[in-house]
């Protein structure tokens, strides 16, 4: 029976792809097979557009235990512990139903980490919305959805970021990152190995929710998206918690061969992936799948995206001992099939064959797409600095406006909706550069951050991507931890548009370059394309989730000043980097120019200098100088510690503009504070690392002051900073 265009639209396959399916099968697929192939060939599951580009990213390193391809990546963090982590997008569901969209995003990433055998111990969220107040409903819904899920599961949300730009008005970015811990020898893999072993489906019963969610995520949003609301799933964090605990109880069980989370494309994807990785096949009897609704067709069972489900590959004959643990947590489970050896995914309903597709047709044989790349017209972003006066009219007023800017102001209204302390391990709480959790029972600290400036990437995706990685690395280093590995989420518009595909290419090149220069492998990640509303794309937004390690967390640093009478130094060189800055926007109403250059060799030297100084115990605090520039960073150090700072008047010198000194966003810079007795050593260390340091002043008092030039009270700054999110 020939397929209709309507049917192809429903499964989101092109006519060309359909022809390829027929070629590969050597026959027409039936409806169930077509549905299964459709979801697995969706961009969301197959990465058919991004895969050729992603190969450019480095993924190996001495600490890497598991690179891309499993449920999550894993690195060795010392003393027999592995950190397992991944970031994932839930943009489209959140656009349609912000609370559940965000909540199930958190649920999905927790399961990815739990499926590796790890106990999830930290969550971070990277969010982008349109401006407030218009985006208030989405912003509030997403934040409470994240809290609603994470708080109930009992995993602390320790970090993340949120930015507001018009480009995200219809299509927010909601990326959730999770990190888990597991003794290295207990790392699990999602492999359906051993012919005759059993497929045990555990957790929630299967319903009709979320069918075609993966396909939905691979289409642009438009007026009809609202009708897709049923494709957004509803989360049950309590069930998820039971699932995580049960998997932890099974951590040492040799009856469990492999674990695979059920996420996008549900059972179809989970079984195909697990069989594909093991080079095996699988037989599923949909009649054995526990349902929460009556009358579900095999098609619906295979494509349901019901949440809180996990596929366990269990040794034949040992299912009872596994099910006993699941029952202890009141979790349903059922043997729904077995591992086979013929490389096919067979679906039966009782005695009736429903589908039979080679596993590789579902997975590796999905055709990749190479698209046309063309740089967009950037003339509207042209910037001539000579046309802009070099002195801010009133630096105090400008600083206060920047501190109140929704992108730079205090995140307290968000952070306090998340339990960031459960687990008794959060040794650096949210609000600084990176958060840190300790591994209880050791001195090891794990620092985590997410970063990614869509603004910079819109102006220059190559530079923007480098900045995202450099800034994430500075955030980690500001805690005294060494950056070790990355998980990334690439959020882009419709890649069929040549300028979007060009942005994707440039971003990945920039990332690859920065990763190599800073020795940072990317061990896991996710790509979210088609982030368009009514034909308008979001800013190219690579979100970098970075993880760092410090051997002794008692040596950690925080951003706020610690003591009165400490010296405050600016580390690094400042240039006339005003392109894309928040200063230009706030002071001159301009969003234009080229983002700051990143000198990767210099960046690396600065990072090593800060790490050496921190390890030697010379520093009392360290803070990355980022968006908003030096003055904003200084204000943040003051606000976090409720301590002021006083110094001699600033002068730019050379051809450095005064506004660039105060508010420029030059990369590779830190603010550090240290006791005066450490000065000789820090000067030596700076010489050794060839790093420029400049004394700015001394901590203390209740004002940020450069004598005779600039003075603002902590109270005024705090009022501006705290009120920014309304």
């Amino acid at each position, binding site marked *: 029976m020939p397929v209709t265009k309507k049917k192809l639209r429903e499964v989101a396959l092109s006519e060309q792809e359909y022809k390829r399916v027929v070629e590969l099968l050597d026959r027409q697929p039936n409806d169930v097979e077509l549905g299964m192939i459709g979801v697995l060939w969706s961009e969301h599951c197959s990465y058919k557009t991004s895969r050729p580009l992603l190969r450019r990213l480095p993924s190996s390193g001495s600490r890497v235990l598991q690179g891309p391809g499993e449920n999550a990546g894993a690195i060795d963090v010392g003393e027999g512990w592995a950190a397992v982590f991944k970031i994932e997008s839930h943009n489209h569901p959140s656009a349609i139903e912000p609370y559940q969209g965000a909540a199930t995003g958190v649920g999905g990433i927790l399961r990815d980490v739990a499926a590796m055998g790890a106990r999830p111990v930290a969550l971070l969220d990277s969010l982008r919305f349109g401006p407030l107040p218009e985006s208030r409903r989405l912003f509030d819904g997403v934040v409470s959805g994240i*809290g609603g899920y994470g*708080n*109930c599961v009992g995993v602390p949300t320790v970090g993340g970021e949120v930015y507001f730009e018009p480009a995200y008005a219809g299509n927010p970015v909601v990326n959730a990152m999770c990190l888990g811990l597991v003794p290295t020898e207990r790392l699990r893999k999602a492999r359906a190995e051993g012919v005759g072993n059993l497929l045990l489906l555990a957790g929630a019963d299967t319903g009709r929710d979320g069918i075609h969610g993966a396909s939905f995520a691979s289409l642009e949003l438009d007026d009809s998206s609202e009708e897709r609301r049923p494709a957004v799933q509803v989360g049950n*964090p309590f069930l998820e*918690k039971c699932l995580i605990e049960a998997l932890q109880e099974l951590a040492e069980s040799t009856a469990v061969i492999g674990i695979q989370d059920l996420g996008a494309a549900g059972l179809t994807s989970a079984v195909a992936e697990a069989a594909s990785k093991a080079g095996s096949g699988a037989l599923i009897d949909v009649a054995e799948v526990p349902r929460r609704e009556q009358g579900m067709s095999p098609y619906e069972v295979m494509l349901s995206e019901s949440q809180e489900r996990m596929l366990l590959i269990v040794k034949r004959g040992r299912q009872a001992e596994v099910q006993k643990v699941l029952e202890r947590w009141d979790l349903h489970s059922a043997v729904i099939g077995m591992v086979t050896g013929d490389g096919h995914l067979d679906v039966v309903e009782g005695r009736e064959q429903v589908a039979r597709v080679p596993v590789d047709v579902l997975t590796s044989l999905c055709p990749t797409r190479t698209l046309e790349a063309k740089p967009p017209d950037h003339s509207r972003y042209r910037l001539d600095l000579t046309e802009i006066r070099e002195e801010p009219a009133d630096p105090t007023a400008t600083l206060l406006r920047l501190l109140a800017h929704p992108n730079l102001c205090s995140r307290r209204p968000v952070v*306090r909706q998340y339990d960031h302390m459960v687990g008794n391990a959060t040794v650096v709480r949210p609000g600084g550069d990176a958060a840190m959790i*300790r591994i*209880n029972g050791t001195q090891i600290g794990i620092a985590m951050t997410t970063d990614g400036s869509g603004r910079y990437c819109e102006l220059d995706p190559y530079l923007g991507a480098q900045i995202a990685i450099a800034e994430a690395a500075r955030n980690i280093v500001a805690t005294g931890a060494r950056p070790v590995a990355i998980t990334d989420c690439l959020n882009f518009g419709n890649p069929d548009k040549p300028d979007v595909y060009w942005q994707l290419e440039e971003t990945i090149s920039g990332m690859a370059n920065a990763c190599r220069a800073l020795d940072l492998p990317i061990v896991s990640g996710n790509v979210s394309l088609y982030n368009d509303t009514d034909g308008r794309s979001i800013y190219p937004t690579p979100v970098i989730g970075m993880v760092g390690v410090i051997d002794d967390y008692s040596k950690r640093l925080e951003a706020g000043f610690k003591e009165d009478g400490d010296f405050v130094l600016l580390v690094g060189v400042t240039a006339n980097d005003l392109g894309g800055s928040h200063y230009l926007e706030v002071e001159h109403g301009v969003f234009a120019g080229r983002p700051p250059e990143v000198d990767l060799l210099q960046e690396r030297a600065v990072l090593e200098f800060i790490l050496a100084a921190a390890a030697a115990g010379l520093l009392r605090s360290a803070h990355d100088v980022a968006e908003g520039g030096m003055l904003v960073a200084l204000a943040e150090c003051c606000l976090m510690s409720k301590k002021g700072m006083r110094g001699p008047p600033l002068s730019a010198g050379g051809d450095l503009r005064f506004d660039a000194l105060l508010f420029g966003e030059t990369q590779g810079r830190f603010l550090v504070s240290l006791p005066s007795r450490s000065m000789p050593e820090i000067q030596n260390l700076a010489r050794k690392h060839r790093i420029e340091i400049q004394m700015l002043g001394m901590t203390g008092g209740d004002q940020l002051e450069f004598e005779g030039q600039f003075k603002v009270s902590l109270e005024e700054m705090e009022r501006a900073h705290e009120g920014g999110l309304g």
Partner: protein
Amino acid sequence: MKFGVVVFPGTWSDRDCGQVIEQVLGAEVRYLWHKDRDLQGCDCVILPGGFSYGDYLRCGAIARFSPVMESVVTFAEHGGLVWGICNGFQVLCETGLLPGALIRNEACQFRCEPAHLFVERADLIYTANLDRGAVLEIPISHGEGNYFADPATLSQIEQNGQVVFRYCQPDGLVVPAANPNGSLHNIAGIVNEAGNVLGMMPHPERRAEVELGGEDGLKLFNSVVDAMNDILVAS
């Protein structure tokens, strides 16, 4: 001295309490599974934070019917120490071991942030190492911690001196601005008339180490250990 920590499936402060008891206090801990009735001879039973059975209906509404709670109620009625923290406080109100109820925070949002507590009672086993009027810094983390009681019950509680902790400013002033969730009379923790059942919304187990922000919570644990050791020695 042996602590029991009750574990409902949705409990998540069990391991935090266990970590404090074992690693910080060096005392013994037993985890008490919700389906079991045996309290294993524990001297003090902690009902920790979490979402007992998901708490989609009402916090603690299902937990009160669990097998373990039958034993906890009997234990409390015989004078045993029962200490409800956060979700545990909610469960104690649901079971009727403590008066009143905990409803949604006034702001209708979850709140996880430091709170300051004015100590009203220093004569309890839980607070024996403190002074009346002392201020503790202990964080809250809840969506439904807004203490409510009808006027008669509230006045009874106050008359009996059952309020143990009130939210206050760092300087100890009990004012509306220091109230994070809308609790009546800034109530953060109460005790039953007999003084053996304590319920509190803040999380003392999260303030038992300097590295995690302070040791004010540890003072409560130490009070219990010291008092119980005295009793155990005396008997």
